[in-house]
């Protein structure tokens, strides 16, 4: 409660109380923070560095506050360093079969060059992490959360070994010779089009392509975590700083940090692992049933399939919802009531710069989850009106071909 008492560390200490709280705790162990290739570039450009999931990352930059950076991304384009995320390449002829044993995705029927949001599940159907899987001709390109990197790798490798021991042909390689740089916002496509000198109109959202941008060989995924059109670009370490400078040289582009990233993803209704998803939550409860391919629902064959199939058949007892809250913003942990009865809690919440309302997501008992349901959220001992609201809270700007 003493955020203002430590003004010099204010961005870190205030942000540490908000959505990414768990991820920040890694800093308290005293371990040295990891740095991305862009670390010094962030500092030179006014980045306020904070510990995040064991990494030193910019929460914001001195030229724009979090709200202004958020609005800039919604109207123009922003660059985010997301190199701390875990990127892996999966090879071997049985790679699809193996990944279907540990995720709920229908990778078999995913077109080559396309990607999907998915989840790694445990034996109880709980979510170990959320992930993006991109299917290429010869491999899978898989990105998951920095904060889950160690446990993801331990989990995947344990199952990988068992799979290999049964004669399965699959291999995993961590991609540590590339940085991941996201450019997000309605003007992101125009910025990249100018650099590559051709239209990207036929490049669908959630597709991934190998492209050469100003002589730099990149993997470009049309995806992101802001609700806007945009790209997540994997760039060789040696070119990462020059590449970022090239993006920032465009007057439509500003640097953005973790602060804006969090409010942008929340408005877009996207989950933050550790807050909105965890190992006790199934994809059905989390509103991520759509990530489970139809074939996978019928056939199962992934960890926790029995539990998930049972929930799909008989329903769930709690569900993830969006809320618009009156009065003070409701943050992580705020209790949710229906007619005086405790029915759940908020898992992420903030004042929304785009809508000027307080938005939140959380879990409530099945039955009080329908859009328009009036609930109450308790903030500092006071119950405030909150209405269940369909997400995203802002219209999605994803590119349609």
């Amino acid at each position: 409660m003493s955020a203002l008492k430590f003004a010099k560390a204010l961005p870190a200490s205030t942000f540490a109380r908000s959505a990414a709280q768990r991820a920040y705790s890694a800093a308290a162990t005293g371990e040295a923070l990891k740095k991305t290739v862009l670390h010094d570039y962030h500092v030179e450009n006014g980045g306020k560095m904070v510990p995040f999931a064991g990494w030193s990352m910019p929460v914001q930059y001195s030229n724009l506050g979090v709200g202004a950076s958020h609005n800039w991304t919604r109207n123009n384009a922003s660059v985010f360093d997301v190199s701390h995320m875990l990127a892996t390449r999966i090879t071997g002829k049985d790679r699809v079969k193996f990944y279907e044993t540990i995720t709920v995705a229908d990778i078999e029927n995913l077109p080559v060059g396309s990607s999907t949001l998915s989840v790694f599940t445990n034996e109880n159907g709980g979510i170990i992490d959320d992930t993006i899987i991109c299917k290429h001709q010869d491999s899978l390109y898989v990105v998951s959360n920095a904060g889950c990197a160690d446990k993801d790798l331990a989990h995947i490798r344990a199952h990988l070994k068992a799979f290999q021991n049964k004669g399965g042909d699959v291999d995993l390689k961590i991609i540590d010779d590339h940085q991941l740089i996201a450019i997000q916002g309605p003007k992101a496509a125009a910025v990249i089009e100018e650099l590559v000198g051709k239209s990207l109109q036929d490049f669908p959202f959630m597709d991934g392509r190998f492209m050469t941008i100003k002589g730099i060989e990149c993997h470009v995924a049309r995806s992101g975590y802001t609700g806007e059109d945009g790209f997540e670009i994997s760039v060789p370490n040696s070119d990462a700083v020059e590449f970022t400078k090239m993006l920032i040289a465009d007057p439509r582009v500003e640097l953005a940090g973790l602060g804006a990233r969090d409010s942008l993803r929340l408005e877009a209704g996207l989950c933050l692992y550790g807050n909105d998803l965890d190992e006790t939550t199934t994809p059905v409860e989390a509103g991520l049933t759509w990530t489970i391919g139809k074939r996978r629902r019928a056939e199962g064959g992934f960890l926790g399939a029995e539990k998930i199939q049972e929930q799909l058949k008989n329903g769930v007892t709690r569900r993830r919802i969006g809320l618009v809250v009156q009065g003070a913003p409701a943050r992580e942990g705020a209790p949710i009531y229906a007619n005086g009865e405790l029915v759940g809690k908020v898992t992420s919440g903030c004042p929304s710069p785009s809508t000027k309302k307080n938005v939140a997501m959380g879990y409530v008992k099945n039955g009080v989850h329908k859009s328009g349901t009036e609930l109450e959220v308790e903030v500092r001992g006071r119950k405030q009106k909150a209405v269940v609201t369909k997400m995203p809270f802002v219209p999605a700007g994803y590119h349609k071909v």
Partner: protein
Amino acid sequence: MKLPADLKYTASHEWVRVEPDGVVTIGITDHAQEALGDIVFLELPTEGTKIAAGKALAVIESVKAASDIYAPISGEILEINEQLADEPGAVNADPYAAWLLKMKPSSEAEFASLMDAEAYRQSIGS
């Protein structure tokens, strides 16, 4: 960074102005508003509340987080700045004009614990 010389300051980044009638006006410093970023909501105490120095007095919410504001001195809340309910961003625009509340101090002896502008400037290292 603006630090008016006629105000007193706290290490927790509140400013205090002692009015001629002995009432004190309280706000947050330029340094605090800048570090907090866009202020979107203020929760102020009700008039008549009695509070001890150092206790949480109000809450300021930015997009990032909720932060406590502490009572610089002990006393009773006389008045809150109602205009901030509709326009919390006024604190960012001019933190010394956008006062938060007025208090009746219970002991003038506590004023001695407050910093002058120069001491506060040194405490924030600017």
